């Protein structure tokens, strides 16, 4: 790991001004992705600005929807009775991320900012139609995730919270890679006021995406049998040592069926 200047931000505004002042600064949440990346020298920022002491970034509030502060850990979301009550699928998703030590320090803000193509939270954001709140604006999930590890965030922009509307039905099912536990395919199905939305992670060549064929089939008939014979195209899906694009395409429909069965 190359050395850097380490700074603690006391507030979001501090973090933004430190980012603006740095040659090549980056914020740090729990460091669960950032530190492994720095260790491998895949990044070498001039400044690391720690958000752990910045006020107002952690916590969960439920009123209509569920709003989760950017620095809220996966363990806090998984254990929250509020989240379990309002959106149990989201608590279950958080419980399935990595391992207990990753959940103790990894955060929703870091997960979403990082936009790993196999991360779990992006699927929940896209399927539920979440709003990502930053120091300067609100961004709809539909406009936020821009391909592999790319988001709509500006270089000096900091996520402050994520707001999820509740859904009539919501469920996330993940087929984990047996070694890493990241999703080989993860499918989040939500029946919302805005219709049925199905988001897929782990499979797309350019990250999380909505499976429109599955959405259409479920819109007219929200049942697993509606997905019989509905194939997802392997075009644009990842192929790697873990699974071919065709296998991932097959898994998407299979996981979506299991998801719908689980909430029917």
């Amino acid at each position, binding site marked *: *790991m*190359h*050395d*850097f*200047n*380490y700074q603690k931000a006391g507030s979001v505004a501090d973090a933004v001004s430190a980012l603006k002042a740095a040659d090549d600064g980056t914020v740090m949440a729990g*460091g*669960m992705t950032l*530190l*492994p990346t*720095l*260790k*491998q020298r895949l990044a070498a920022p001039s400044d*690391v600005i*720690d958000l*752990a002491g910045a006020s107002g970034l952690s916590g969960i509030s439920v009123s209509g929807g569920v709003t989760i502060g950017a620095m809220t850990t996966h363990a806090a979301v998984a254990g929250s009775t509020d989240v379990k009550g309002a959106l149990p699928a989201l608590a279950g998703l958080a419980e399935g991320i*990595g*391992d*207990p*030590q*990753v959940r*103790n*320090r990894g955060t929703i803000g870091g997960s979403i900012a990082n936009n790993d193509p196999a991360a779990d939270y992006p699927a929940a954001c896209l399927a539920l139609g979440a709003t990502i709140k930053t120091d300067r604006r609100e961004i709809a999930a539909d406009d936020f995730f821009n391909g592999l590890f790319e988001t709509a965030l500006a270089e000096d922009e900091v996520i402050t919270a994520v707001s999820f509307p509740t859904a009539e039905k919501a469920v996330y099912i993940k087929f984990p890679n047996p070694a*890493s*536990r990241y999703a080989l395919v993860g499918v989040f199905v939500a029946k919302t006021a805005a219709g049925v939305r199905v988001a897929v992670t782990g499979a797309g060549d350019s990250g999380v995406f909505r499976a429109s064929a599955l959405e259409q089939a479920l819109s007219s008939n929200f049942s697993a049998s509606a997905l019989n014979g509905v194939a997802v195209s392997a075009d644009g899906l990842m192929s790697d040592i873990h699974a071919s694009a065709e296998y991932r395409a097959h898994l998407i429909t299979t996981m979506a069926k299991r998801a719908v069965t689980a909430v029917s």
Partner: protein
Amino acid sequence: MPTVSMTVNGKPVSGEVEARTLLVQFLRDQLRLTGTHVGCDTSQCGACVVHIDGESAKSCTMLALQADGAAVTTIEGLADGETLHPMQEAFRNNHGLQCGFCTPGMVMSAIDLVKKNPKASETEIREWLEGNICRCTGYHNIVKSIQEAAGNMGG
């Protein structure tokens, strides 16, 4: 160089570190607490697990500076003189270790589990150990050790 101060196993310590110094390097190289191990460079094996303010964390995936002001407990901080912590004792009684490389992390992780879930089932124990890899035991006796310790710890 930045200075870092924290409490380790109940004692206040401080030292000069580089910003990039990992907590595990500070513990092992500066404090000479070599019970905390490093088994991988991908944050996956759990040999480095310590407690930060009572929560288990991978000390290889934390900067020393992130622990500034925290209370850190390592495997060296568990025994009371010659008396082992019930989790250590249970690992000894149940042959919960072979080479012992993973053991400090297993013990620290298991104590966090029992604190949060004193009546953890076998499945819950196995799921909790997701982030602790053992190359020797096949986990069976580790699970047995944790079950026995949970009983002795009042679970």
